[in-house]
């Protein structure tokens, strides 16, 4: 897009700046629209699970219900509790909302269609999602009320607990893909299983962690069955109790933007992102963005399905699942995946194996035939010499 603005006669920096702002707006506004529609879709889904009709009054099939709700909260009075910490009380929903939008910067919507194609894309997502807890914690504290405060404490503990196992799960994927770049992770899934299925999730070694990631994603976004931060039977409405009007709406938007983000991450990390499900040429005629959105919607259907059917966890069960089950299993899986990759990907025939002395000689232009090694783990593979920096020992 930068080159387009440059063709309008701008300098490179001005064009880059304009293109980035345009890119941000191009992601943020459709995301808001998507959140409004996805809330409608989810309500329809729950209604179907409960054999009800769901929203069906505003607009055709009730499709404008979310906009009507938005208008309603927009016209409400903003109530700020007199005992609250005024500044922080108002900043908290803004933090939640902003952080939920920020993570979308590195999500690739198609081949090269990404706002910020950075090397550490996945780490960026991890960093940003770890910021999400502040909105909840600050709102709970600033409300100066018991239930929001309990909710804030729960949210902080829950998010930290599940971030640990999510980190290990991401490391398994990164080990397999060999990069933190989101585009690289998607490209690594092309024809991954049996040469024609574009998904890490169908790899037998990665399937269990795909399931764990789905569950951890639900816990990380505090969705049912892990929505203990806003468990209405225990904490009224949790950290949102004292909020009204637009501040309340910002929490909602942020929450659903986060849920969509987690669905998108599931699609990118385990189901091939914008690649079609099967590596077959005619399927590439369909634009990648459509495959990507379809995968997000399927993931979202699973999220709604779980929310409609699974009863809420108890808080101690939630902590047990995070620390005593997911953490050991994901840690073991890092060990398993890295061991498997060491044996298969980073091993080679003895004739291909190079030793440190030989590598320096190769750099000087001499060639040596490899001797039979005393310890075959000492050297590195000749093919690895092409990887930048590996031969600099």
């Amino acid at each position, binding site marked *: 897009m930068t080159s387009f603005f440059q063709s309008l006669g701008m300098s490179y*920096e001005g064009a880059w700046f304009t293109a980035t702002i345009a890119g941000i707006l191009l992601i943020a506004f459709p995301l808001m629209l998507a959140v409004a529609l996805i809330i409608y879709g989810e309500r329809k889904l729950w209604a179907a699970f409960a054999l009800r009709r769901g929203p069906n009054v505003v607009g055709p099939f009730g499709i404008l219900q979310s906009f009507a709700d938005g208008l309603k909260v927009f016209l409400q009075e903003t109530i700020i509790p007199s005992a609250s910490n005024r500044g922080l009380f108002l900043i908290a929903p803004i933090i939640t909302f902003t952080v939920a939008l920020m993570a979308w910067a590195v999500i690739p919507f198609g081949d090269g269609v990404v706002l910020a194609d950075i*090397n550490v894309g996945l*780490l960026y997502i991890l960093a940003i999602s770890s910021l999400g807890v502040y909105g909840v914690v600050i709102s709970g504290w600033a409300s100066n009320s018991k239930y929001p405060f309990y909710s804030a404490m729960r949210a902080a503990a829950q998010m930290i607990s599940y971030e640990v196992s999510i980190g290990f799960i991401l490391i398994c994927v990164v080990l397999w893909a060999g990069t933190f770049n989101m585009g690289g992770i998607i490209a690594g899934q092309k024809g991954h299983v049996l040469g024609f299925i574009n998904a890490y999730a169908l790899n037998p070694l990665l399937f269990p962690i795909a399931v764990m990631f789905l569950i951890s994603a639900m816990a990380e976004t505090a969705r049912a069955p892990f929505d203990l931060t806003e468990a209405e039977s225990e904490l009224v409405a949790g950290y949102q109790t004292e909020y009204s009007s637009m501040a309340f709406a910002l929490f909602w938007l942020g929450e659903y933007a986060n849920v969509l983000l987690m669905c998108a991450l599931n699609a990118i990390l385990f189901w091939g992102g914008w690649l079609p499900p099967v590596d077959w040429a005619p399927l590439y005629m369909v634009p990648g963005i459509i495959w990507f959105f379809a995968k997000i919607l399927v993931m979202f259907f699973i999220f709604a399905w779980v929310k409609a059917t699974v009863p809420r966890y108890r808080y101690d069960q939630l902590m047990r699942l995070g620390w005593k089950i997911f953490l050991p299993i994901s840690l073991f899986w890092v060990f398993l995946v890295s061991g498997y990759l060491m044996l298969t990907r980073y091993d080679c025939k003895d004739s291909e194996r190079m030793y440190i002395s030989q590598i320096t000689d190769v750099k000087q232009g001499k060639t040596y035939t490899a001797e039979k090694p005393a310890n075959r783990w000492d050297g590195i593979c000749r093919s690895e010499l092409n990887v930048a920096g590996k031969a600099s020992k």
Partner: protein
Amino acid sequence: MIQVISFYLFASILIASAAMVIFARNPVHSVLWLIVAFFNAAGLMVLIGAEFIAMLLVIVYVGAVAVLFLFVVMMLDIDFAELRAGFIKNVPLGLLLAVVLVAELILGVGAYRAGAVKLGIPEVGPATVSSSVPNIEAIGNLLYSKYIFLFESAGLILLVAMVGAIVLTHRRSHGTKGQNINSQNMRRPQDATRNVNQPVGQGVEL
């Protein structure tokens, strides 16, 4: 141009928020300003091209350490009158610390003006990182080859610290009753309830 603007933006917000950590009356506000400071430090790291360090700074300090700070500080019952009383009591100590710090600053700047200290000759020249190698690979190549023993011993020290923390805090107190999740999950409805075909007008024997 844009680098200069963002450098001054990040740097000035960093210094201002670092000052606010000290000047804020409320400890919770102090922690929040600290978080802003961490975040802007990460921004500065990105500017010099150390994106991996920047992300680690955010994940570790903002995402974990500061949350725990906030956790503890929020639990405090803040009494401003008591804080002020403590202020007057602690003024001599604070002044002493301030004098020591100022003396050190003056000494440090003086020594710096007098010329750099020679620290012997390093084995190799300054590390040069080509911009084509991603941060993570460059760090990994050094960490897992040249500094492998230092890296492993750092890991061991952390492990010992972790085990120590768990040993110190994990006391099994005798009065409490824990849950056996497995036996809870194994429990069937027929273990807990029974159906009684109750004749009308008579009580149930429980």
